[in-house]
């Protein structure tokens, strides 16, 4: 290989790789609060059925995951654990921040123990607003992310900083 990192991959090959990547997203669920139930409904319930979008829910470990969905209130006590599991995920990795709490603190914007926005800690690709967002909203977020993956220049993603686990 080496072509991917060098950025000299021919365009058709890039789009082929991107297509295969975007329809085999392993989503690591990070159920934190209320949103986790709506995420459970989106990922596990028969009505919404996320697998038809080519998303495979609930891998056993963050090391097998491409995508993490931070769903719910992030507290200052929780942040180190989130950072650590994020660091354990292999590149290229994507983050969906689900719900107002993970986006910006939400109804707890003035709380003394809530982190106002998970983007202070890890980079976020898609924000899904709502308190909690409906499962359909999460699915739309996933579709938007897939669109973005489809257009991605793979070299840029793969040249990212290495994973460092402290």
């Amino acid at each position: 290989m080496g072509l991917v990192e060098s950025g000299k991959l021919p365009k058709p090959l890039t789009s082929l790789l991107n297509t295969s990547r975007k329809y085999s997203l392993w989503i690591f669920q990070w159920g934190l609060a209320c949103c986790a139930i709506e995420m459970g409904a989106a990922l596990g319930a028969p009505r919404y059925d996320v697998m038809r979008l080519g998303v495979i829910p609930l891998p056993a470990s963050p090391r097998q995951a491409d995508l993490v969905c931070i769903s719910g209130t992030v507290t200052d006590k929780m942040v180190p654990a989130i950072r650590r599991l994020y660091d354990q995920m292999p590149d290229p990795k994507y983050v969906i921040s689900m719900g107002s709490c993970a986006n910006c603190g939400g109804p707890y914007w003035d709380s003394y123990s809530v982190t106002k926005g998970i983007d202070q800690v890890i980079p976020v690709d898609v924000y899904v607003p709502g308190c909690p967002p409906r499962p359909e909203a999460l699915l739309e977020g996933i579709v938007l992310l897939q669109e973005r993956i489809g257009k991605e220049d793979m070299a840029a993603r793969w040249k990212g900083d290495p994973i460092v686990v402290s």
Partner: protein
Amino acid sequence: MTALTERQQLAYANAQAADGRVNLEFETDEGMTLNMGPQHPATHGTLRIVLKLDGEQVISCEPIMGYMHRGYEKLVEVRTYPQVTTLVNRIDWLGSFANEVPFILAAEKLMDIEAPPRAQWIRTILFELSRISNISLFVGDMALHIGAISAAFYAFRDREYVLNQIEAATGGRFHPNFDRIGGLKDDLPKGWIADTKATMNKIRDFCDEMETLVEGNEIFQTRTRGIGVIPADVALAYGMSGANLRASGVDWDLRRDEPVGLAWNECDWNVITHPDGDSFARFWVRLQEIRESTRIVDQLLDGLPAGPIMAKVPRIIKVPEGEAWVATENPLGEMGYYVVSKGGLGPFRVKIRTASFNNIAVIPWVTRGVYVPDVVTILASLYFILGDIDR
């Protein structure tokens, strides 16, 4: 693995080494320490449990919480009364409507107003619907923790029907925020009553299905019968409530014994108890409670009185000075609000007594000496929600 660059290989090795260090930390003098959580499916959120093990048996168990502490009691002090219901919706996020009711009732008690009968009945109906949506998830979830995944799909499927009804009436699938001081935001939509009755039939079918699929399963029975027995006196001393208390044989239900103005006394239903106090009893009691809830909803829909849904309240709500305690039987157990008012726009101090906080205080007691796999079934059967513990 030639696809990995040198840097990625290094990162992989780093990650492996980090995990090795963590495992080393867990080894202590006596036996072994096993860390469960804060991200473990059996913890319904983010509870962390540190188990000290001797072989397969638990010597001691220390729950560590606070991963979901959002500071409700402080935030409530800087919000006005109508704003508080938005916030307390999210305490027990599966039974959102039930969280609003005791707070609104406490405020109404202080203001000395009473919601009209129709509002009280609709409140009761929505209360029971949120109980059904809450506990049906528990039924699927408990089976999931024992290893049966299909029950979880059925639970999610049938729960959607109830959520549809809640959404049709309140506009919110999850956090309705429908209660107002003195009544409700809106009346029921057209055709809602017939739809809800049909939904209740579906839920009763769901109960039958779960009884054969989960409760009658031999593996389920072996994993839960005689496991995690909590005697009645221990349950009382720890302040356990709800189905956990009734599964220990205590015949106590605030809906029947200390009615707070809602319409439970107007219909015919039973308080379900079980003498065993084990994990199976807790599951069984909850499953039967869904059935009783559907009966309550059916009867209330039949006898729904006509009339206004809002009492006369001032436009700007100021609650007179005083203290009030109102507790209701929420899906998870007794939830009470101790509201202290100083006559302002917002409460002076609110103590939120949540069911799960007291219910899981018993975990160190009940897990002593059990085997590791049983810890999961005990946690699942105690049924707590992290927002309800940490607040």
